Each structure stands twice: as C-alpha cells, then as structure tokens.
C-alpha cells in the first residue's frame, strides 16, 4: 500500500463489532438477548423523542429489533453496532411519529429566557446588578441532605417525566444513559449548541426541584 494513499474517509472497521454481528448472523440467541437487554433502554429514550406514549415507544423498539434481525448482513462495522441500531431506531421512531401525526420540532430553537428565577438576582439599579441577592443565593446542600440520595433519586425519576419532551429526551440520553453529545445531535438532527441548550434547561429545572426538595431555600412567594 502506497504511503501517499489518502487517509480513508470512513472510520476504520471495528473488529469486535463485526465479530458480534457475525455471532448474531450465525443465530447466536444469547448474544441477541444480551444486546436487547443492553441497548433497549437507550432505544426507548430515543423512540420517546418521536412518539407520544411509552407504549408506542415500546412498539418502535420491538419493530427496530425485528428489522435489525433481518438486516444484520448490512452492518459494515463502520460504526459500533449500537450506533447502527440507534440509527434504525430513529428511522422507525420518525415513521411512527409521522403516522401519529406528531411532528416534534426538534430543530426549533428553545429560547425561553433564563433558567433561574430572575427575582434571585439584583436589579439593574443595583451597583451589583445581575449578582445574587442575599436571599436568592443558593445555599450549599449539607452532607445530611445529600445522604437522602435514595429519596432524591425517586424524585428525580418522577420529575424527569415531567420535563418538556425534548429536554427530557436529551437529559435521559446524555445524563442517564451516558450517550455522547455528537450521537444525540446525529439522532435528532440538532446543532451542538441547541443540544446544549436543551440539556442545560433540563438540568437547571431538575436542580431547582432538588433545591426545593432539600429545602435549601423557601419557595418563592
């Protein structure tokens, strides 16, 4: 091979991913059960970004797995198998969403103003304009409060479901599932900055709920 040959545009083939695909192609049921268990939580969150209910999201995930089972030969190892499966989930999800006549404006920019109650900051007449007021400044959570993580976790799980859908989907994929920002942008066709806006708004709302829960500050009058 010539040293002058230009670098390939496609990323290198991923041998472990190809080996996994080969096992699946050979009908390895255990390998299939394993990836169904491993990827389905993420797929449910992706699907939920396109369809109206949890039940519809499960339908999307089921249909995706059947489609994956039939088209394994088409996997070329240019991405991880997980990325490939998530792309199929996105396509199936989008189709189901369209059938539900439900078009989530994923690319629409979210600019609902500040994420923190403006009352907590000093007004423009104040020499410290834009700084925290004495009552508004966040109070550090104590170790005792943080020890209540079990309850906080239950609260968090419940409150996640109440976030606006795009914020919820991004927070779930990024912070619960640990998917990287680039993958989230690819799946929903959003810009890196829009992804960060959605993530920030979701995180800020959840932080506020925790603050109310830990009682670090009296509820705003």
């Amino acid at each position, binding site marked *: 091979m010539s040293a002058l040959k230009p670098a390939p545009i496609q990323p290198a083939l991923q041998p472990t991913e190809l080996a996994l695909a080969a096992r699946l192609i050979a009908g390895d049921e255990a390998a299939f059960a394993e990836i169904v268990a491993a990827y389905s939580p993420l797929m449910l969150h992706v699907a939920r970004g396109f369809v109206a209910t949890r039940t519809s999201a499960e339908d999307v995930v089921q249909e995706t797995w059947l489609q994956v089972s039939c088209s394994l030969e088409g996997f070329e190892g240019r991405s991880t198998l997980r990325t490939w499966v998530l792309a199929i989930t996105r396509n199936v999800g989008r189709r189901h969403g369209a059938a539900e006549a439900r078009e989530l404006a994923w690319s629409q920019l979210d600019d609902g103003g500040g*994420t923190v109650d403006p009352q907590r900051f000093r007004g423009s007449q104040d020499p410290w304009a834009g700084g925290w007021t004495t009552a508004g400044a*966040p109070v550090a959570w104590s170790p005792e409060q943080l020890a209540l993580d079990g309850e906080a976790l239950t609260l968090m799980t419940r409150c996640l479901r109440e976030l606006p859908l795009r914020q919820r989907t991004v927070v779930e994929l990024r912070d619960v599932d640990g998917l990287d920002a680039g993958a989230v942008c690819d799946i929903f066709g959003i810009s890196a900055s829009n992804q960060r806006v959605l993530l*920030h708004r979701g995180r800020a709302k959840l*932080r506020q709920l925790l603050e109310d829960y830990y009682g670090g500050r009296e509820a705003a009058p």
Partner: protein
Amino acid sequence: MTPSSPLTCRQVVEMLTDYLEGALAPSTAAALEEHLATCPGCSTYLAQISHTVRLLGAVTPDELPESTQKGLVAAFRGLRPPRP
C-alpha cells in the same frame, strides 16, 4: 457582553452546561473560572448542577418488559435459526 465587562451571576448560571461540555472559548472559560473562584453563590450553583448530573447517572434505566424481551428472542430464533 464585552470582554471588559465582568460576568454577572445571572450570566454565569446560563453558561455552566457550555462550560462543563468544554464548549466555551478559552478566554470566556477563564473569565468564568475567575468569577467562580470569588463567588460562593455561583460555585455552589455549579456544585449543585454537578450533583444533579451525578444523581441522574444513578437513575435506573428504562427497561423493555421482560415478556417483550423474551418474545423478541423467540422471534430472532425464528428469523435466524442457529447454524450448526
């Protein structure tokens, strides 16, 4: 916002996800860190956002129902009978 005007707390709280994601220009990140170093309110706020993210990492992932998973494995068996 010009480079000469220092960041206010109200601006800082909106920049923290960009900061954690490494998406701020180096000069802006430096200005933000300078603010955090001298502002207990904002550094507490950042610690609380980080705690929120950590808690989210401990949320139980959504599972596909056990019966659905079993059904999928059965369907897979039908679509791809094991090769000898």
